[in-house]
């Protein structure tokens, strides 16, 4: 069966695009080269031991986080095999085995081979320990990777799990933005690293990490204490075995019901039972009400919102403990920007549910749909990022930053409320349709939206930011607040208008993009030329990955 599953994976792989895979391969290859460089250039066995422990821990980190960040990992989904008369655990084991097929695991094996090299160089008699460690490490890393990914998918079934997934995303994103502050001292020491190795507490911490155990086993063997050597390797073996067993269990097809489990009626759901409604009886009121409920209750949307707040919070903590305390009060502003990045694929998030808007299209529906989403977005993003800002300013005591924080919040709230909607319409990318979603990254791919936002957000906020710099230098930073207000309001209004006009013109095409996928949508897109928005649409079609199986 395993052979069959592997062949299925390769066949499916042949039908998917290569785009981002190439980039990850280059990164992995560079990692292999760096690991071997550290192993070979180390001046003594002791130095090499420390460096390898660090490198292997980084490899494990990459395997843990990689699948969450890159899209389309769940090529072979457990639920495909639910109905086969096979033992569920055998399917799980088979699926785990397929995870070892590919260039990534192969290159990782080349990297873990440094353990064997370390053994050979320390004491040729310990070589077999090194070889066993090399294999166990690969099995451990790949299984752990699948374990974490599936655990995240399973996490979408419960509130607390979703919160953990959000925290993990927050760590990743904050790390991407400000991780350099933490890594920077390590990099500045890299030239002396191969001479002096690692020292002090770092080594103590590293020796607790399981990926270091085969290295410690080799060190013990080279020092003559074979008992300790077998102890370390035995511990690694046992841990690997447990990981494999748990992973097999998690990868086995599940028949449990999906979605977040609730014990009580959802908040605000008594519309027909005489509950009061504060929203007007208009299409705009309809959209605002629906959007607020969806943001509140949908775990995939919740993930976007919470991950952003966690990112802000962690950036604030970096500021409090790191070498750049000035960033601490801007935690809320950072969170707001990340909410903007995450919200830039709203129509992709909703999937084929757009049919309601298409068949229910009245004179004012599309304008109401865009404006309503903007209002709901602002109602959620505004207060939450403002509250986080308040906490961050008070905690850091950086009251000088208040006018900067207020200006930032005001201008970015308007700009993100406009830009997310425009990008959601133009660069819409479907994920797995909402009623079939399982894994944490089943919502649509939004990489091009993120890249464009990173450039467009500062550009669109430039008037306010420029004024803020000028007013700050003049010593009157509060002067920038009204400019930020005007800048934000104008951006929200103009970009929102552009979004609903675009939708007005291309509503069936937008639905086609979601319903029928990339190939059919490319037929309906303007072939070449056109305005900025047409180019953006083509860019999204060319870049973003479809994780949706195309329907009939």
């Amino acid at each position, binding site marked *: 069966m395993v052979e069959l599953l592997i062949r299925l994976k390769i066949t499916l792989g042949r039908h998917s695009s290569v785009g981002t895979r190439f980039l990850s391969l280059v990164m992995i290859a560079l990692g292999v080269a760096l690991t071997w460089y550290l192993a070979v250039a180390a001046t003594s066995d002791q130095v090499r031991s420390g460096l390898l422990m660090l490198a292997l821990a980084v490899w494990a980190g990459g395997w843990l986080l990689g699948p969450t960040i890159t899209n389309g990992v769940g090529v072979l989904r457990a639920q495909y095999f639910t109905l086969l008369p096979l033992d569920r655990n055998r399917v799980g084991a088979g699926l785990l085995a397929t995870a070892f097929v590919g260039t990534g695991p192969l290159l990782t094996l080349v990297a873990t081979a440094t353990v064997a090299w370390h053994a050979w160089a320390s004491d040729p008699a310990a070589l077999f320990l090194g070889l066993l460690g090399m294999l166990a490490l690969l099995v451990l890393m790949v299984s752990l990777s699948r374990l974490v990914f599936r655990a995240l998918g399973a996490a979408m079934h419960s509130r607390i799990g979703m919160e953990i997934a959000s925290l993990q995303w927050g760590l990743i994103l904050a790390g991407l933005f400000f991780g350099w502050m933490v890594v920077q001292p390590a990099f500045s020491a890299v030239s002396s690293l191969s001479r002096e190795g690692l020292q002090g507490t770092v080594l103590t911490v590293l020796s607790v990490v399981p990926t270091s155990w085969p290295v410690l086993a080799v060190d013990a063997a080279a020092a003559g204490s074979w008992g300790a050597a077998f102890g370390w390797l035995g511990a690694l073996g046992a841990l690997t075995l447990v990981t494999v067993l748990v992973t097999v269990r998690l990868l086995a097809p599940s028949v449990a019901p999906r979605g977040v489990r609730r014990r009580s009626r959802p908040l605000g759901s008594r519309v*027909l039972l005489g509950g009061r409604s504060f929203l007007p009886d208009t299409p705009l009121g309809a959209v605002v009400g629906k959007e607020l409920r969806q943001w509140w209750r949908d775990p995939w949307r919740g993930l976007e919102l919470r991950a952003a707040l966690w990112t802000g919070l962690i950036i604030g903590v970096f500021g409090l403990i790191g070498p750049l305390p000035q960033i601490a009060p801007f935690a809320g502003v950072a969170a707001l920007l990340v909410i903007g990045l995450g919200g830039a694929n709203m129509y992709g998030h909703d999937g084929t549910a757009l049919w*309601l808007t298409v068949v229910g*299209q009245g004179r004012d529906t599309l304008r109401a749909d865009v404006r309503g989403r903007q209002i709901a977005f602002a109602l959620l993003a505004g207060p939450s990022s403002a509250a986080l800002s308040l906490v961050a300013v008070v905690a850091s005591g950086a009251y000088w930053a208040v006018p900067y924080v207020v200006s930032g919040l005001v201008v970015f709230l308007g700009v993100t409320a406009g830009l997310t909607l425009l990008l959601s319409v133009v660069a819409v990318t479907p994920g797995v349709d909402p009623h079939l979603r399982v894994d944490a990254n089943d919502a649509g791919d939004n990489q091009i939206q993120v890249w464009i936002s990173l450039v467009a957000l500062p550009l669109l906020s430039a008037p306010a930011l420029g004024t803020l710099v000028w007013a700050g230098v003049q010593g009157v930073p509060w002067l920038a607040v009204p400019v930020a207000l005007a800048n934000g309001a104008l951006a929200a209004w103009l970009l929102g208008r552009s979004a609903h006009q675009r939708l007005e013109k291309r509503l069936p095409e937008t639905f086609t993009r979601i319903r029928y996928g990339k190939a059919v949508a490319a*037929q309906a897109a303007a072939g070449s030329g056109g305005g900025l928005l047409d180019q953006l649409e083509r860019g999204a079609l060319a870049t973003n990955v479809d994780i949706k199986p195309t329907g009939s």
Partner: protein
Amino acid sequence: MTSDDVPALELDGLTKTFNETRAADDVSIAVPRGATLGLVGPNGAGKTTSLSMAVGLLRPDSGTARVLGVDVWRDPVEAKQRMGVLPDGLSLPERLTGGELLDYWGRLRGLPRDVTRTRAEELLQVLELDGAERDGVLVAEFSTGMRKKIGLATALLHAPDVLVLDEPYEAVDPVSARVLTAILRRFTDGGGTVVISSHVMALVEQLTDRVAIIAEGRVLADGTLGEVRGADATLEDTFVRLVGAREVGEGDLAWLNS
């Protein structure tokens, strides 16, 4: 515009090509007012594609559709007001309850609040979704049959003139199916027009007075049930005659008996 001789729904030369496959090829069907049309065809025949183009979900390569004489592609707002649509297998706002979904839909359609509320309550009750509403069950937690029923409620809520339903009976239990049939009869008795797609011939024969057979994107027959059936005993015979069927010979699949 809406005099009696104007068809309630008219598919006029609808054509669509997907990646060089012609999913619909010059599909023309006219449904008179008050009629119930069954659109039948094998899997992948182009039923959903044709209906999607007729209701404004998919832009045709050529051809158009008219609802009571109003062009769906030239005047979508006017045409869509007269239509109630139930597509097959699509998502809904998954994190709303059935009642919230209807409340959203009523406001979006511009219905007054009390009208929405009365109709929604009645629809949920008739379709036996009121229990789920009391428990606050979200659409995401609905069974396939319940999804069909709440979809049907959205199609009916604004009291349209024409109903276009893609596979409305699929996954619906026999009791609910009777309710559904009663609702459709009530609708046509009041002068409404219904188009349903299905591949269950017996159902179509029992429910509709007109039928169109479609295969490989082309309309092979279109008319009243009697006209289309002609000398054949059942609609299934006509269907098989027109579409062609692979007969299972004596020796085929012999291993099934082993």
